[in-house]
């Protein structure tokens, strides 16, 4: 198994706060690597540095054999880094299908076309429709995003990411706000999806994490304090202390 994503010793500070402290992390093909940690541990900051929203103070990020540390978010997406967000990021006035077509348009890249209607573009539509089929949202194609439910938006984000045929997925709390049934369905879906492209998963839902992850890394105060299989993590004394300690304070 090769490393598709390789984060090498990145650090990021905001003033006196060390949000990322010498973090190294990798993602191998075919796996789900879960990143967990208490609130304020610096998960979002880390994800942002991987996706291109923030630049690390030091260290580097490698993706598909290329140093992407200085690339902006769109360039990273074009290289095949698919992303879903903690809070859904969709075009609210566009329909479900349009949002998905937009994903396909993004990976196609030929955007400076001003004449032909995009919604009659067969290749793009095909990619979009099959992505919607896969997440089970085809029946909602014509709805505006502002009209669909929270859970459906999460599904749609995954569908848009699928249209980009990514080499790896970066998923920030995909289970958040889903009901029990929704989480279970998504868990099944992600288990299949990882064969296609590995997933770096940030998640609070511990049932899902322990059911899905091949590896788990635990982030506390900007540092990875443990990394290993779910069994290792479950029995790791440092992790227990960090979690219990935190719970003891609040």
């Amino acid at each position, binding site marked *: 198994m090769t490393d598709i994503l390789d984060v090498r010793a990145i650090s990021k500070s905001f003033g006196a706060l060390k949000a990322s402290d010498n973090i190294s992390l990798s993602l191998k093909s075919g796996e789900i690597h879960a990143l967990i940690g208490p609130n304020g541990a610096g998960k979002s900051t880390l994800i942002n540095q991987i996706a291109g929203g923030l630049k690390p103070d030091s260290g580097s990020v490698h993706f598909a054999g290329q140093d992407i540390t200085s690339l902006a*978010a769109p*360039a990273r997406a074009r290289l095949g880094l698919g992303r879903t967000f903690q809070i859904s*990021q969709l*075009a609210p006035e566009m329909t479900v299908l349009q949002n998905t077509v937009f994903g396909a348009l993004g990976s196609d890249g030929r955007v*400076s076309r*001003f004449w032909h209607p995009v919604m009659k573009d067969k290749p793009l539509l095909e990619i979009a429709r099959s992505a919607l089929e896969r997440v089970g949202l085809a029946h909602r194609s014509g709805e505006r995003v502002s009209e669909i439910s929270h859970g459906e938006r999460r599904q749609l984000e995954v569908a*848009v990411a699928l249209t980009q045929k990514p080499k790896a997925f970066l998923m920030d709390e995909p289970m958040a706000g889903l009901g029990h049934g929704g989480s279970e369905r998504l868990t099944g879906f992600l288990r299949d999806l990882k064969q296609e492209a590995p997933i770096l998963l940030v998640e609070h839902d511990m049932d899902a994490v322990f059911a899905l992850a091949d590896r788990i890394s635990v982030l506390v105060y900007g540092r990875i304090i443990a990394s290993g299989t779910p069994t290792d993590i479950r029995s790791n004394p440092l992790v227990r202390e960090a979690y219990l300690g935190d719970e003891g304070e609040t």
Partner: protein
Amino acid sequence: MIKETDLNTAIWLLFLGVPLAAWQMGEIYTITLATKICVLALAGVGLNIALGLGGMVSLGHAAFFGIGGYAMGILASHAQSYAPIMETPFLIEGTKSMPVIWVLAIIMSGIAALAIGALSLRTNGAYFIMITLAFGQMIYFFAISWPAYGGEDGLSIYVRNDFPGLNTLVPIQFFALCFAILTAVIFLSSRLEHSRFGMALQATRQNETRTQAVGLTPYKIRLIAFVISGMICGLAGAVSADLNRFVSPTMLSWHTSGEIMIFVILGGTGRLFAPLVGAAIYIMLEHFLGGVSDYWQIFLGLLLLMVVLFAPGGVIGLLTKREAAHD
């Protein structure tokens, strides 16, 4: 409720029909008013691409309108005086040909939009508004302080420029020309709205993070739209200058930017025919209220305030009862 496409067809037919009827009845002034509406609507269609589709609240579009106007003024004044614009390193002479003037107006305003857009689009929100306003003002002050083309007093062109096959001095013929341009540009902007680029532009307005996540760069998309928008305003400026046979720094003032924006808003932001409806309302208010009271702009202000506070979809929004396109 009325479907927006039906309404658009009705509006289009009305705008063709009224001047034709006026022509039959010999009401020259009505034709001139209709021509004025066409020209202002054209500028509105230009702004609507940046504002309605792209969500860029530019208060500097008068710059492009005015640059288009000055392109006409400078070319025509040189043709009028038979003095070349420059002789070294190569000869450039003035011209009275509308198509040539239009192409140059579009190019010049496009270049200005590229420069202003490239800087302004580095920011967003309130900064963008203030910066476009400031750059517009810079060009305004430059026009005032540069004496070669009339400075503060502006430039008069005594005879309207030529268009092959038409007598542009006949009001109905000039109206037909302006109406044809407006129709063509509305059609083009409708193609653009539904094209790949149009989708990317609207998605960027609605959610910039989404655009980045699919691998597109919002800055480039916005900049292209800003330039297209500026070019259309430049064309509108050149035609407007021909309508008035006069250009002055007023075309460049920020009030002009505000007025172009008012056309778009009164009609309904982001809607295809909004600029035409808005410009018509504006010109009719000016015509009818202006006859009643010297202070008609108070009423315009009140109307605008009411539309913003209580009817965010503009007039077309009220008639079609759809939500405002920019929400």
